[in-house]
Each structure stands twice: as C-alpha cells, then as structure tokens.
C-alpha cells in the first residue's frame, strides 16, 4: 500500500462524513480487533514466510482482505481464525509467486553447527537456529507447527487455517514435528520417518 498523504486523510474524512460505510466493521471494532491480534499475526507471518519484511507487507494486506470480505463472524475466535486463514493463503500465494527467493535456506556448512548451538547458546542464538531450522520445512509445515505450539490452536482450527482435512492434522503435525526435531538435532530433514525409537 502507498503512504497516506495529508490530502488523502482529509479526503477520506470528508467522504466518511457523507458516504455509506466502506466496510461492514466499524472503526472502533476494527481497532480493538487489530490491537488484540496484530502482534500474534505478524509473528505468525514472520515465522511462516521466514521474512520480517514480507510479514510487514502481508499484515496490512491480511487486514484489508479481512475487512473487504464482509464476513459474518460469530465470535472472536472465528474472527481470529479468519484472519489467520487469510494470512496463510497470502503467504502461500507469495510463496508460489517467487517470494521463496527471499527466504534464505540454511547453508550446508551451517547445519553441523545447529546441534552445538542449541546446547550452549543463549536465547537469541537459539531463536536464530530455530528460524533457520524452520526454513527447512515447507510453509504448510511451518504454519501447522507455529499454530499448534506457539499459538496454541486446536487441531480443528489448524485444519481450517491451513486448508487440510481435520482428520489428517494429527499425522501431518506428527511428520512436521519429527522433521523439525531432526533438523534441530542433525540439520537433516531427509531423515524424517526413519527415526522411531
């Protein structure tokens, strides 16, 4: 979105006074919802795209599409799910249309350092390692894991957000978790499925 100018704001004020509401949701409700959800949504976008810059762009696009959708939401949870679903679709589209180039995969030479780093480094380094490890997963796997463990979503909500059948979530989540655990330990997602104690 382009930056607002003072003239834009004045024009909008004038239009808002005389025109019908552009969105179904009023400003006060939107601002309350935004203040409750924006940080968590940005964190989600940042982690599933692997790029804070992309998260910046997609955050505003997500809220815009949410407002334009004019959907009837029964409650706060429904609104949140709707936001995360839109964000997931936008991130997926970005991924398809070349945003992947911006997501830097873990270089081979760094993989061996992961295990040691997890053991000895401080919070910042552990988080950087997690960030790099997440980039070894597919966007859908990242989304599922973040929603399940960082965001605390139910399996049904995760299924709805990432667009898979609820019955498949348990297995998909297991595989994604296994893959991330292996990357964090060994730096090799290819071993997933061969480690069953």
């Amino acid at each position, binding site marked *: *979105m382009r930056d*607002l100018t003072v003239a*834009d*704001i004045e024009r*909008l004020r004038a*239009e*808002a006074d005389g*025109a019908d509401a*552009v*969105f179904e949701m009023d*400003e006060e409700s*939107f*601002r309350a919802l*935004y*203040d409750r959800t*924006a*940080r*968590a949504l*940005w*964190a989600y976008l*940042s*982690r599933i795209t692997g790029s*804070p810059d992309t*998260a*910046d762009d997609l*955050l*505003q696009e997500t*809220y*815009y599409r949410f*407002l*334009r959708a004019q959907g009837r939401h029964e409650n706060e949870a429904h609104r949140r799910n709707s936001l995360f679903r839109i964000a997931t679709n936008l991130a997926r589209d970005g991924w398809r249309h070349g945003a992947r180039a911006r997501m830097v995969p873990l270089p081979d030479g760094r993989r061996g350092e992961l295990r040691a780093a997890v053991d000895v480094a401080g*919070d910042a380094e*552990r*988080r950087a390692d*997690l960030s790099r490890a997440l980039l070894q997963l597919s966007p859908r796997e990242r989304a599922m*894991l*973040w929603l399940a*463990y*960082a*965001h*605390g979503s139910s399996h049904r909500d995760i299924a709805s957000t990432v667009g898979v059948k609820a019955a498949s979530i*348990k*297995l998909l989540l*297991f595989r994604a*978790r*296994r893959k*991330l*655990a292996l990357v*964090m*330990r060994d730096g090799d997602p290819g071993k997933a*499925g061969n*480690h*069953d*104690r």
Partner: protein
Amino acid sequence: MIVECDREQDVLDAIASQRWPARCDEDLRVHVHACSVCADLVEVASALVDDHAPVCQEARIPSSGIVWWRAQLRATEEDARAAARPIAFIQGVAVSVAVWLLVILARSLPAATLAAWRGWLGDAARLLPVPSLAQVTAIPTGVLLVVGAVLLLAPLAIYFAVAED
C-alpha cells in the same frame, strides 16, 4: 509407525506452564526420555513456545488507525474504479450509436438538402484546414465500414483496459 502418545497433552501442559523440565513429575521426564513422540514434542514445542513472546515483541506493526485509514482509502479507490468501468462502457456505446445515427441520417436526407449542407460546409471548410465534405463522402464504403467497426469496438476496448487495472 507410532504417531501419537497418550501423554502428549501432559507434556504440552508442562511446557506451557513452564514446569518442564525442572518442576514436572519425575515419571513424565522418564517417559519423555523413552518416548520418541514426546521427545520430539518437547524439543519442538519448547523451542516454539520460547520463541513466541520475543517474536511478538519484535513485531513491527503500524498503528490500528493508520491501517484502518489505508484500508478505507484503498477500498474507496477500488470501488470508484469498479464503478467507473460500466460507465466508461456505456459512454463508449453512446458515442458509437450517436455517430452511426448521424451517418444513417446523413444518408437518408434528400439530395437537395445534402447539396445545400455541402455548400454551407464547403464554405466553412474553406476557412478551416480540414478535408472538405466532398472528400469525406468520396471515401469508399469499405473504409467507412472499418471506421464504423472501430467505433463500435472502441468502448469494448476501453472497458477491458479499465477492467485490467
């Protein structure tokens, strides 16, 4: 392949409540040590739970007011563009119809009237650097048909050009 464990929820509760590993039951620690499903869960869930709050703190989010105004501005512009598309189409159709009516009218007028108009237009044309009516009426019918077709298709072209925006 075992994909789930009955104690997964216990492990998640311990992590979420920050009881893992020091303040949780000894038997849960023993279980996690022996269970690959729960071991993976601890590794992944702990990392993601620990990451969540700092990432949220780092979030670079614009104020809700700015996001609202930007969305409203964009929606207003999009609505205006959408509303302008059919208007542009109808205007194009109207112009084309008007031109065709003029052509039909001109061809159906009596020869004497046309001759009088030609004389008047001829006088006017001598004052302007434009082709005379005689030259225009001398254009072959095929060329006139092509011009007519262009006039007819122009509104469609305008419509699709605007629609692509």
